[in-house]
């Protein structure tokens, strides 16, 4: 599955929310990636996600692939939307 988001949280995806995203991604078997600009990283890798330095206004693409890709997408979708609301 593939979904696109625009990050509207003032601080961008800083260290703490990145940790939450990675912890959530690690709950699933599917491969999960996040792409920003032209760089794609594994969402289960904390250093990878942090290296993107995702700022306010950034477009990111989340892709899930595997046996629980739908559940994974739903869970991450909830987390990103919740984060954007803050």
């Amino acid at each position, binding site marked *: 599955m593939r979904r696109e988001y625009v990050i509207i949280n003032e601080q961008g995806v*800083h260290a703490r929310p990145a940790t939450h995203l990675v912890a959530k991604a690690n709950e699933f078997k599917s491969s999960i990636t996040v792409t920003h600009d032209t760089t794609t990283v594994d969402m289960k890798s904390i250093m990878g996600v942090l290296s993107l330095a995702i700022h306010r206004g950034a477009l990111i693409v989340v892709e899930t692939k595997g046996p629980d890709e739908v559940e994974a997408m739903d869970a991450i979708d909830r987390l990103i939307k919740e984060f954007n609301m803050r």
Partner: protein
Amino acid sequence: MALTIGTLVDDFHLQVISGAGGLNTELASPQLSRPGIELAGLFDYFEHDRIQLFGSKEVTFFGWLNESDQEIRVDMLFQRKPPAFIFSKHVDIPAVFVHKGDAYNIPILKSSLRTSALAARLYQYLFSKLAPRESVHGTLLDISGVGVLIRGASGIGKSEVALELVRRGHQLVADDRVDMYQREPGIVIGEAPEILKHYLEIRGIGLVNVVKLFGASAYKEDKTIMLVVDLMHWDDKQDYDRLGIDNPTYRIFDTDVAHARIPITAARSVSTLVEVAAMNARLKFLGTHMAREFADNLAQAIHRKGQSKKE
């Protein structure tokens, strides 16, 4: 732990002037009393379970009293049966104290230290001997000056970690059982029970005396516990600290001690992890928080990128 006046006399090289019959009295309170106000006649707050410490101030004031007041107030001091009277270096002990000491079997003692130095040393000594103690299953090491208490289930490898770290030049304090007491809020001291001092127990080898094996520098008598490390088997369901931005703590008595939970697997060198955890704690004590520096750098990078996209 029971502490008698006799032990105190030996440890502080005190001179027993009279009242030697009371040397087996056990001390109950780690506090001291300077009974100046009692000599002045106020006994409502008399801390009679404490050692009574007399310096020049108390004795000079006592000299100002007339003889009948002296007699009455000294009797009131002795009737409540304090454990001992200690006089500091430059004090002439009034004769009435010497007589009463023998009459009541309460030791009258003379120190070679000045009052303030004597009080400070007595406080520290009494607290270390009489403060509440707790024993914990774990291993205590001094890793480059950081006191690290390693805990974890039996057989997880605490002693093996200790052996490896001692080989790398760090010091063993206690293996398997650590006795702890709080010297003051913020300072918890750990040490080995007397019989276990110097020893490590390594499965398959047995008891190892680290002083004989590695020399005197491999061992330390006691150490302030500055970091608690919990070793645990890796559990996929557990969420381990990834960045180390938070400063979790673990409470011992009234003291919050830095706390790290380290999951172990076959691929992870536990000794190195514990050593790095100790160095990280040391850096934090020195004011450098590596994870927070990283988070700050990241926040700035995100901010810069956001700004340049707007333009």
